[in-house]
């Protein structure tokens, strides 16, 4: 292994698909697989309390043929429980190892996520500072969503969402992705296609 840079507050391969509930219920495990225009990733995290989660992520970036393995933590900084809505602020951070061209370097990330939702309206914003062995890069995304029908506890809940992603260093800095989110009990599935024709898939399961 070769470390070419020391690890400081960095940034990494964290897909910007806003994760529904970065922290689970106490004692809960969460597994996720994702694919978007640039990356494939697998993530597992455990929530000792409803306040924070610890996890592992493996991610392959197709744009530069790099693979990242990282340990991370999500922290629920603040939650507002209102009669008809809920708001959340999360902080995230992690460190890992990046494999590129048979070299391994240190890397990491930190980020912020906020969301507010009712039973039929969803809004979120997140940003991430990434470091992959060179200059840090910044990316952010926002989502708005609407559930056309009110569903009961044991029904599949459909959501229509639009994600706007902004990556200043990218050749296409702004990407729009309409997507369909389906939620049923402890399973969430997201399917979308960006305005650049890239498919997005996100599957999450809580245990």
């Amino acid at each position, binding site marked *: 292994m070769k470390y070419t840079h020391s690890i400081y507050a960095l940034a990494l391969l964290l897909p910007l698909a806003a994760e529904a*509930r970065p922290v689970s*219920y106490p*004692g809960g495990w969460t597994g996720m697989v994702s694919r978007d225009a640039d990356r494939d990733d697998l993530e597992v995290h455990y929530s000792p309390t409803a306040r924070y989660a610890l996890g592992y992520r493996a991610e392959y970036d197709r744009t530069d043929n790099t693979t990242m393995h990282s340990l991370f933590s999500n922290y629920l900084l603040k939650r507002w429980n209102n009669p008809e809505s809920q708001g959340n602020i999360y902080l995230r951070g992690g460190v890992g190892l990046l494999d590129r061209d048979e070299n391994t370097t240190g890397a990491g990330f930190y980020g912020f996520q906020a969301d507010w939702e009712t039973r039929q309206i969803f809004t979120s914003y997140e940003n991430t500072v990434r470091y992959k062995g060179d200059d840090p890069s910044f990316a952010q995304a926002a989502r708005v969503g609407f559930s056309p029908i009110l569903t009961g506890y*044991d029904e599949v*809940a459909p959501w229509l969402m639009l994600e706007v992603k902004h990556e200043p260093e990218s050749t296409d800095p702004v990407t729009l992705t309409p997507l369909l989110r389906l*939620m049923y*009990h*402890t399973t969430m599935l997201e399917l979308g296609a960006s305005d650049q024709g890239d498919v997005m898939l996100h599957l999450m399961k809580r245990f």
Partner: protein
Amino acid sequence: MKTQFKTLVITAAVIFMPAASFAATMKADISGLVCAFCAQSLEKVFMKQPEVEEIKVDLDSKLVTIIFKEGQVISTERANALITDAGYAAQNFRIEE
């Protein structure tokens, strides 16, 4: 205070009248209950408690109903702590036989 008195009466009944077994229920209004995916945390947390038989969540009324096993019950303080630990806020606890 009223709810605590009710809890005491039901608990005393459980202890001193074994022949008259019954399944108590506890209801509470929940804040922040906006989706079933999220509310699964309530089910997971309460179903780990040995006293709990079943839990029902009503997203329309924001009401959670905890059905206890016969002859068993938990205090409202403990129920409130469990709901808080699950990430929600609760009010207006009431126990029904």
